[in-house]
């Protein structure tokens, strides 16, 4: 087995086990940490697939910003394993079975799909230069629109999260 395959299997095992850790751990903070590990392993897969830019962006945005946000919220609510609610056994079983069935169905469907082989030493489409060229020529409109999306998300988050002000002075004079 070449280095490539060893790395692949390593990263795969890491990803799946940490994903299982996310859903199975009782402490929410442990779940967050497991999820961060999952993101790192996925970024590793990106590098293996010659998508260097995305690997770095994944780490920065997801593991760096989003997970930190989650941690903030969990800390804010002071959640820990004691107060963590649990669903009933039957419902959990139903959930697991549903997920399992979905897995099997998709697998069976895609088993006989026609695919092209992946080349190992392949193109450099994942390089920042090439990706940037595609982004700013072919997809420039979605790119600009996504900035508007961010703006609206920001405004929305602020408006929703604002505390109600109970001490407002009435506008009319006394």
């Amino acid at each position: 087995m070449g280095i490539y395959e060893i790395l692949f299997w390593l990263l795969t095992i890491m990803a799946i086990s940490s994903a299982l850790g996310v859903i199975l751990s009782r402490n929410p903070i442990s779940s967050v940490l497991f999820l961060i590990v999952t993101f790192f392993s996925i970024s590793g897969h990106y590098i293996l697939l010659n998508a260097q830019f995305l690997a770095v962006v994944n780490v920065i945005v997801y593991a760096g910003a989003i997970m930190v946000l989650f941690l903030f919220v969990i800390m804010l609510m002071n959640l820990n394993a004691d107060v963590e609610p649990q669903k009933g056994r039957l419902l959990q079983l139903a959930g697991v079975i549903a997920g399992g069935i979905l897995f099997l169905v998709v697998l069976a469907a895609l088993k006989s799909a026609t695919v092209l082989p992946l080349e190992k030493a392949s193109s450099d489409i994942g390089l920042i230069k090439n990706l940037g060229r595609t982004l700013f020529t072919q997809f420039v409109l979605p790119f600009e629109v996504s900035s508007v999306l961010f703006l609206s998300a920001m405004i929305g988050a602020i408006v929703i999260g604002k505390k109600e002000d109970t001490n407002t002075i009435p506008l009319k004079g006394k």
Partner: protein
Amino acid sequence: MSQLVYLVPLFPLIGFLINGIGWRRIPKSLGGVIGSLAVFASFCVSLGIFFEVKSDSFHGPVLVQLFEFIHSGKLFIPFSFQVDSLSSLFLLIITGVGFLIHVYSTAYMHEDEGMVKYFAFLNLFVFSMLLLVLGGNYLVMFIGWEGVGLCSYLLIGFWFKNRDYTNAAKKAFIMNRIGDLGFLVGMLLILFNYGTLSYQEFFGKLQGTQAAGISSDTYNWIAICLFIGATGKSAQIPLYTWLPDAMAGPTPVSALIHAATMVTAGIYMIARSHVLYTMAPMTLHIVAIIGLATALFAATIAIKQYDIKKVLAYSTVSQLGFMFLALGVGAYTTAVFHVMTHAFFKALLFLGSGSVIHAMGGEQDIRKMGGLGKKLRTTQITFLIGCLAISGIPGLSGFFSKDEILAAAYAHDPVLYYLAVVAAMMTAFYMFRLYFLTFTGGFRGTEDQAHHLHESPTAMTIPLIVLAILSVIGGYVGLPGVISEHHALGSFLSSSVTNISEHHLEASTEWMLMSVSVTVSVIMIIFAYSVNKKPDFKPATGFAKVLENKWYVDELYDAVIVRPIQNLSAFMERFAERKGIDGLVNGVGRSVRWGSDRIRMLQTGQVGFYIFVMVLGMIALFAVGFFWVKL
């Protein structure tokens, strides 16, 4: 002139519209004038048409098409009028007698609040009747047929505040409708087998394809179905019970509709379709038998009736039976002749009875009358003329037409003749019983009524006199073969309808038949006189009681037909309607409610549950998308 034939029904239609729309505002006498003038105008146009048809320059039936009525694919039925001798004769009868009755009504209905409405209905009736006789195809005739049924209903139930009268109107209409179903089926059979309803085309096809393909069964079925319609409209067995009850309407209505015109629609229809009926001898046989049976049956009932109008009603049914007997033995022209004379003397008798009722202040029971001749001279004389005419006394119109019928019956089958003579005997008896009880002897009413007795106003007596004159001279257009070679009416009508003369009677036989019928009539008149000299009205027992109660036919119909239908509808209401249809409709609502109650459970508000359902849906979509749908 015949091109202007559309004017004939147009005038009464306009009269109906004016009187009908403005009946609250138009003063009573003006309404009467409008109605009478409308019919008079029609009468004048009909006279013009009659003379044109009579003249030698008239060739064959003239079809005047007004507009295309139904045109759908291969089916083409125009709204057309047919002017020929038969229709022009009926036009004269309808408009002439109708006009006299309109004039009579202006005086008779003078105190009634709805007098203008009454004239509107009368005009509408005349319009429908004219459509009936003028129609060039069975459909236009049917329009008129239904129209006169409707007007009969409207006029019988004219005093609508009385429940009995409205029930009588309903009865008339419903029995008419039963007959109309037969007529409609007959029309559909004609349309199905021959593709046309127009008289000329239909009869042309009948005569042309006599031996081609269509079996004689078809002719018989068509003829029978049309005849069922005639039994309903012309009050024959079994659909006759509405006519005596229809006397609930005002007397001029009884005179016009139930004596002179509407009830003769059946006769007209069969006379018009004589080509068809000649080819269906079995049906003719049925027609004759039913006609004869009705004549006898109704006469027996009339013997024991005490309401002056009921006697006349049963007399009408009986005389219609005679006319159908004439049709049944193939004597079509004779039947039309009797229609004409019957119109004269029956209208006269009804109007006379109206005069009597008017004088008696509304009393109709002859047991309370008597000796009216002293105060009601004109009425008495004209009534006597009418009774003589209907009894077949020589010299008056009834003699000629009735004798022609009897002669034709004898020529066909002597048994029919003997039974018809029995009916004629009873006719003479009950008519003169009526006359003697009403106009002679001592007065049996109350003091108040005695003071009220007076002769009717001129507007009522003039039509009586005119009709009396017509009853006398009207018969001379149809002199029998032994007296004169020339039968004016027969030759006039021969362009559209002729008698089937299968057996020709010898002159001596004819004289013998005539004398026999005259003799028995005179005997019955004397018998009536002697029986009613000292009238004694004890309650009837035994057979007399059966006659007085009309052979319990109404009760029979009630038990056999009306009750079961009412029970059936009550049953259907309880089961089919409430449990079945209501249950079904309410059940749909209830099941929707139940379903929504169950589906509501899905909306738990639990996000986890929603996600679960989403996942299940995803699985299903994947499975279907990948394994079932061909990608």
